[in-house]
């Protein structure tokens, strides 16, 4: 007779045991961890419940009516625009990103110093700065590129129009979107290529397949799931990107869904929350389906990976194509960061925006006006930095505690619940969370409208998935046995965390903090809805300046934002490389 078949009563007991016995049984740390999880969980779920209740039950908004309104208001065009722009950009980004991944991981293209910045690009030059930079570069008449094009054409005696290059159309929008989606694809594909057993490709070469044949018959089929996964991440990113369509799409009268949703919330009074929410929920449904598809793709694909590190792959010799490949990569780096940043810097020191660069006229007046003379933008900068520092620190501490707690209590229902709740904002569009925060916290009983608190809470909720992701990555690096050794030495979970795990996680947590700081201090989407004249932040002020057409001030603010975020990112990259190189 086996004793393993439990009676229902026993199963019940073990279930309670699994939930509460372990979760609450091990001292103060579990209580702190549970408290953190519950607060974060409430911050995520409560606004969503309130907004759903208010819109669909209290105000009785009816979905069929709203759907009708979508057709009546001509919103179909917005859907078409969104699908065309983001769809095309994703396909282009997939091709370019995969090509770069293959070049970097598998060929003798070299340039390791440059290529490792590629995935970090959106952090080095934030999308809003890139978008403004491209407006300055490629506007008809006053864009630098148009001027240069005229000059070059003039050398050959050709009279070129100064409106040859125009960013204000579908192609321009696709172009800028593509630039910002390439790193997503590059990151997923190159990390899969790095883990893909090079013996597969070497076997193909030995079997007589040439470089191209190997690429087509072995490499590409092997990374196809990774390309697809990267495209889905790009889709999620693309749908949530508000700054690009706001800056480039609006003047071109190409409205995308994200911009329209924000407009419904801030440009109309009273805010059309019902419609905004419904449209945002469409995004959520698309993102949800995409995430589900992605997990299916990754689960079903059988990646054969190598166990040990440091296997040297025989690099494909590019020969004459090497120059071409390098040019291509440099060209991408130029258009994605160097050129827009150049345009920002130049316009920020010009008396007024003009495509003709005269160094002798350069002035710092705009910096003075933005950062010293105007209290409004000065306090916005200080607010953003303060919110970034505090929000990132709080976010990382909470994320570290939650990550440790989930890891130590695997297979319990409590940790599974915490795990899925903290991932929820990643599957939600930022727009939904922004709307929900406006509805839930602006008025009674919280009255947080126009405060720093509502921004801080919103930032933490928005970026908690990234925070827990980097916290659990650094936890994985520490390794489970070091923590277990502390437990076996008599340390409670809390003591093990503070004395052993936390100090060892620190380098990873600092990197995570930087990431959060850059994301939070540069946030546009939630800030557009939650910030105001009483609690200005950089993202809000940028949109404001943009609406007023104050390009030099805009350029000054964009330059400083870019410099702060890229300096921080570069320092962190440097530190984490150093700590990887030297064994502790």
């Amino acid at each position, binding site marked *: 007779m086996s004793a393993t078949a*439990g009676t229902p009563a026993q199963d019940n007991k073990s279930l309670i045991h699994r939930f509460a016995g372990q979760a609450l049984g091990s001292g103060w740390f579990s209580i702190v961890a549970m408290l953190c999880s519950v607060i974060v969980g409430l911050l995520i779920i409560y606004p969503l419940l309130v907004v759903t209740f208010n819109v669909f039950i209290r105000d009785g908004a009816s979905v069929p009516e709203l759907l009708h309104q979508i057709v009546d208001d001509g919103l179909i065009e917005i859907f078409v625009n969104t699908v065309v722009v983001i769809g095309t950009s994703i396909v282009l980004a997939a091709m370019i990103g995969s090509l770069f991944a293959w070049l970097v991981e598998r060929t003798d293209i070299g340039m390791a110093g440059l290529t490792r910045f590629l995935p970090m690009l959106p952090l080095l030059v934030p999308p809003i700065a890139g978008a403004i930079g491209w407006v300055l570069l490629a506007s008809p008449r006053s864009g630098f590129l148009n001027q240069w094009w005229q000059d070059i054409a003039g050398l050959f005696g050709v009279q070129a129009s100064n409106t040859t290059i125009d960013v204000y159309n579908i192609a321009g929008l696709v172009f800028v979107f593509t630039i910002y989606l390439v790193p997503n694809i590059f990151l997923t594909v190159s990390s899969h290529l790095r883990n893909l057993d090079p013996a597969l490709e070497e076997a193909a070469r030995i079997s007589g397949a040439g470089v191209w044949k190997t690429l087509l018959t072995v490499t590409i089929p092997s990374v196809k799931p990774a390309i697809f996964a990267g495209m889905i991440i790009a889709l999620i990113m693309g749908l949530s990107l508000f700054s690009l369509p706001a800056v480039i799409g609006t003047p071109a009268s190409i409205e995308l869904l994200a911009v329209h949703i924000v407009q419904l919330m801030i440009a109309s009074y009273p805010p059309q929350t019902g419609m905004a929410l419904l449209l945002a929920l469409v995004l959520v449904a698309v993102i949800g389906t995409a995430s589900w598809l992605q997990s299916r793709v990754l689960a079903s694909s059988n990646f054969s990976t190598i166990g040990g590190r440091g296997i040297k792959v025989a690099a494909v010799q590019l020969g004459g194509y090497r120059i071409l490949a390098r040019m291509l990569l440099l060209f991408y780096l130029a258009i994605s960061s160097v050129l827009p940043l150049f345009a920002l810097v130049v316009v920020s020191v010009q008396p007024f925006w003009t495509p003709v660069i005269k160094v002798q006229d350069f002035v710092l007046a705009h910096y003075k006006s933005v950062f010293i003379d105007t209290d409004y933008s000065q306090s916005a900068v200080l607010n953003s930095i303060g919110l970034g520092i505090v929000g990132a620190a709080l976010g990382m501490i909470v994320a570290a505690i939650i990550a440790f707690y989930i890891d130590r209590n695997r297979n319990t229902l409590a940790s599974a619940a915490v795990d899925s709740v903290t991932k929820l904002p990643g599957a939600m569009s930022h727009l939904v969370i922004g709307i929900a925060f406006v509805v839930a916290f602006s008025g009674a009983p919280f009255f947080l409208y126009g405060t720093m608190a509502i921004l801080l809470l919103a930032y933490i909720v928005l970026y908690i998935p990234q925070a827990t992701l980097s916290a659990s990555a650094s936890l994985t690096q520490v*390794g489970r046995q070091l923590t277990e050794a502390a437990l076996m030495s008599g340390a409670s979970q809390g003591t093990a965390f503070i004395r052993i795990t936390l100090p060892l996680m620190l380098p990873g947590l600092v990197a995570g903090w930087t990431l959060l700081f850059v994301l939070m201090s540069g946030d546009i989407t939630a800030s557009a809805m939650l910030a105001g004249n009483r609690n200005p932040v950089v993202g809000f002020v940028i949109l404001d300046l943009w609406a007023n057409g104050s390009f030099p001030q805009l350029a000054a603010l964009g330059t400083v934002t870019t410099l702060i975020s890229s300096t921080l990112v570069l320092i962190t990259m440097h530190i984490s490389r150093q700590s990887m190189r030297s064994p502790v």
Partner: protein
Amino acid sequence: MDNDAPHIRISNVSKHFVRRDGTAVRAIDGISLDIQQGEFLVLLGPSGCGKTTLLRSIAGLESPDSGAIIIDGQPVYDFASGVNVTPEKRKIGMMFQSYALWPHMTIEENVKFPMQMRGVGKDETREKIDHVLAMMHVADLAQQYPGQLSGGQQQRVALARAIVCSNHLVLFDEPLSNVDAKVREHLRIELSLMQRKLGFTAIYVTHDQEEAMALADRVVVLGEGKVWQAGHPEEVYRRPVDVRVADFIGSANFFRGTLTGNGAERRVETSLGTLTVPENRVRTSDRDVVVMSRPERWRVAAQAPGSGEGWVGKIAAVAFMGPHSEFLIEIGDQVVRIRDQAASVLKVGAEVWCSIDMADLQVLSAQGFEGIE
């Protein structure tokens, strides 16, 4: 403490995992074991046999689904009464596969940590640290960091940390699997000496049978979550209870046969003819049997042995291994693996005489044999 009571009693412990695809796997399946004070017990088995899960359940790092674990007469896990003592309260020392020395602490801080956690007084701590570091020959390394130590030194520090504050019980999770063969042998001897000197109870997990043989007072061979056989290493090696154990431990020759006769001498009909085997070498009452023999119990010679008993075979392959040579010899349609020190002059294709003492044969049930060959 009562000397007759086992140090650790594991009764009917089970644990299952749920795989990603939703199927449940029984990692350990109703295991019961008594471990005596001061015993060196080795849990041996192929990967996935449940040995690590069992060890981690004793440590408290894993919670079983049912059964009970009693240490020093105190239940640390008991499904029936809902007892589940957290690992930090079990007072067990543990050595991890990676040694798990904390890289941000000096050797002294590493060893001091368990005593700080258990509230040992300052003077006593000082005294114990000095004592244990001296005993492990690492006293001069006290102020260094783990990254500066060699593998052997790290092992000694890890052992020092494991025993410094434990309740005379130390668990070992494959601690030698990361070092190369030569160092491993050295560390193994050192560990064995240390355990005998200090007299703690050791439970040691490994998949390396040579290591298991060398260290164990008692080997527990685990497979598919169950105990296949437990006993002295020599017993497990020479007298395996079934073909699975015989196949997992060492190398073996298997001949299918049919068991007949009874009394002190039993006969087995095999392709090598009728073998007459002493009754105490028969571990089954099945008619359908497998005769197991170890390669090193066989002898190879160019001439017929004195007794005149043996088989004539042809050498199919021979490999010189250093201490011995390894032969594959065809006897009829049967291939026999033989290890013998003799006869380096014997070459492939030569006709030779092979012989073995009937007392070196082991007759096992043929059940499960198909899965092996």
